[in-house]
């Protein structure tokens, strides 16, 4: 254990970390978005772990999923109960080894944990953007990250890595900035979300729209649409787990009783779990951000954007490690295989493995040894090759 102030953290933790902020696209140089609209100034919240080497060849950009943040690892304060969202993977000696690599993670634009999003103040009006915030795409998120990476003095990233929406950003990075990415690690991801995935996102958005507190997105300063956002999160959580995992974790067990109470109080363990997830989420997430980010995921479609996957990947220079999970029904393996086949046909270097897991889409966030081992080995050989 090492001690940071009053906080005892494990030796393989990055310890106390501070979120930094980078602002660019200051008026009149606003950032041009895919939708045709402009946004500025743009602030990105980011954290870094480890040290950039003298040759600047060991930088790894981590890309978060729907509900993630810049805070990938360690603790922001001594009072933090939980570490960052990918702490199981980031730290000294871990998969993304901070003794070896310089790790960067930023909050996406449209987000609500420090980067410019619908809850930010619109300099034009002095009020929160709300729904006047322009629609952002995965492509826009990546373009914003590009400014941050250049600001940090990095010409080429050793790797871009992320799961789910983070994997989409990783793919977009390789396509948008081929010369800047040596390798990419998309996990549990896809070149486009399925109709089923869009359907679940839409139900989540409708839950928010129909919350009377939502007020057309103009709820800042008043009561927040917590019921709607909580419900959206509960629905989302079902899609992140597999049937098997739910069965093992909760089964039909009751929370506090042995017998049915014959009323509508929540009594099954799985009900309590989902309620808990919903409540936890509304304390840390903005409902409008949920709308914007799910929309960005729905819009992502490399085939539509470039004509075909082959055309999308033609100029890509990166080497790939792509991982999918057998029990992931939200981003099923076939969607990863489709990416792999297109990359192979383009003659790119690509490793692909479908990991046998019971834990569903979110496996990439869990302590999965196979995922960790494969990424660590891939990164090591990429560093030997490009570092």
């Amino acid at each position, binding site marked *: 254990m090492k001690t940071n102030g009053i906080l005892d953290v494990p030796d393989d933790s990055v310890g106390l970390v501070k979120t930094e902020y980078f602002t660019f696209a200051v008026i009149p140089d606003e950032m041009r978005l895919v939708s045709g609209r402009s946004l500025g100034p743009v602030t990105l919240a980011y954290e870094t772990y480890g040290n950039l080497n003298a040759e600047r060849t060991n930088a790894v950009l981590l890309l978060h999923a729907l509900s993630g943040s810049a805070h990938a690892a360690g603790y922001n304060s001594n009072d933090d109960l939980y570490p960052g969202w990918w702490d199981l993977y980031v730290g000294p000696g871990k998969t993304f080894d901070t003794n070896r690599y310089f790790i960067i993670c930023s909050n996406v634009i449209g987000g609500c944990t420090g980067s410019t999003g619908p809850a930010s103040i619109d300099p034009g009006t002095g009020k929160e953007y709300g729904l006047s915030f322009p629609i952002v795409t995965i492509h826009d998120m990546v373009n914003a990250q590009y400014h941050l990476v250049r600001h940090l003095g990095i010409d080429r990233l050793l790797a871009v890595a992320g799961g789910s929406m983070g994997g989409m950003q990783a793919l977009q990075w390789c396509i948008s900035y081929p010369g800047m990415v040596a390798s990419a690690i998309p996990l549990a991801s896809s070149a486009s979300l399925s109709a089923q995935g869009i359907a679940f996102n839409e139900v989540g958005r409708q839950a928010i729209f129909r919350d009377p507190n939502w007020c057309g997105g103009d709820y800042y300063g008043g009561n927040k649409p917590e019921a709607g956002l909580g419900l959206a999160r509960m629905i989302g959580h079902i899609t992140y787990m597999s049937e098997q995992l739910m069965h093992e974790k909760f089964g039909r067990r009751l929370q506090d009783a042995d017998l049915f109470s014959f009323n509508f109080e929540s009594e099954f363990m799985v009900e309590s779990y989902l309620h808990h997830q919903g409540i936890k989420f509304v304390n840390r997430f903005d409902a409008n951000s949920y709308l914007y980010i799910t929309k960005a995921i729905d819009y992502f479609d490399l085939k539509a954007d470039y004509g075909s996957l082959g055309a999308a990947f033609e100029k890509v220079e990166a*080497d790939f*490690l792509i991982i999918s999970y057998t029990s992931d029904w939200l981003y099923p393996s076939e969607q990863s*295989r489709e990416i*792999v*086949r*297109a990359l*192979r*046909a383009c*003659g790119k*270097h*690509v*490793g*692909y*493995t*479908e*990991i*046998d897991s019971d834990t569903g889409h979110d496996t990439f966030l869990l302590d999965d040894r*196979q995922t960790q*081992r*494969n990424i660590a*080995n*891939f990164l*090591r*050989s990429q560093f*030997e*090759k490009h570092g």
Partner: protein
Amino acid sequence: MKSTAEHGGEIRAGYDIIIEEVPAHSRVLDLGCGDGVLLYTLQRVKKIDGYGVELSAEGVSMCLEKGLYCYQGDIDDGLADYKSNSFDYVILNQTLQSTKKPEYVLAEIMRIGKNAIISFPNFGYYQIRLQLLCKGTMPKNRLLPYEWYESPNIHLLTIRDFLRYCRGNHYPVKKERHFNVGVGGVSLPTVAAANLFAQYGMFVLDGEKFTGAS
């Protein structure tokens, strides 16, 4: 020192002659690459640009450990996506007999590879014949170490079968090697009556010529 064909005590049949066959800096696809030892050796010794396909997740992980790019899937999965003649060499080492669709796999290999290296255990080897003749049971030995009910080898063949097949399909055979595996995994060439006395057959087919002709 261990021979390149021996790894962890296990004999890697015919690795040495495949390594000898592949020219430096070739672009190589190894179908059914297992733990990647052959590709890794080729990468080290011949500086090849290597690609692998392997069914087991553990095999893929071991390839990643060696810095190889390996795809987890059936070997016939996605072959159709490759452009014609996109590899200098496509290797099918000790795998043909366990493919589900050998005809499809061979046709695709001939299309995507400028050269194909096909190596397989020879079911015509005299000890196999003797076992079937004398004992009346399915042969089980070092070449084919499985009981009939657990064997992945569903399309067993002899050297003569393969040659006939190539002739019938107009697959040009560039080179033909017949061998037994000796001490330390060294391949020992057989001199006469290959279909009777060779444990293994290795063939180099001219995929470029074939693709050009069709």
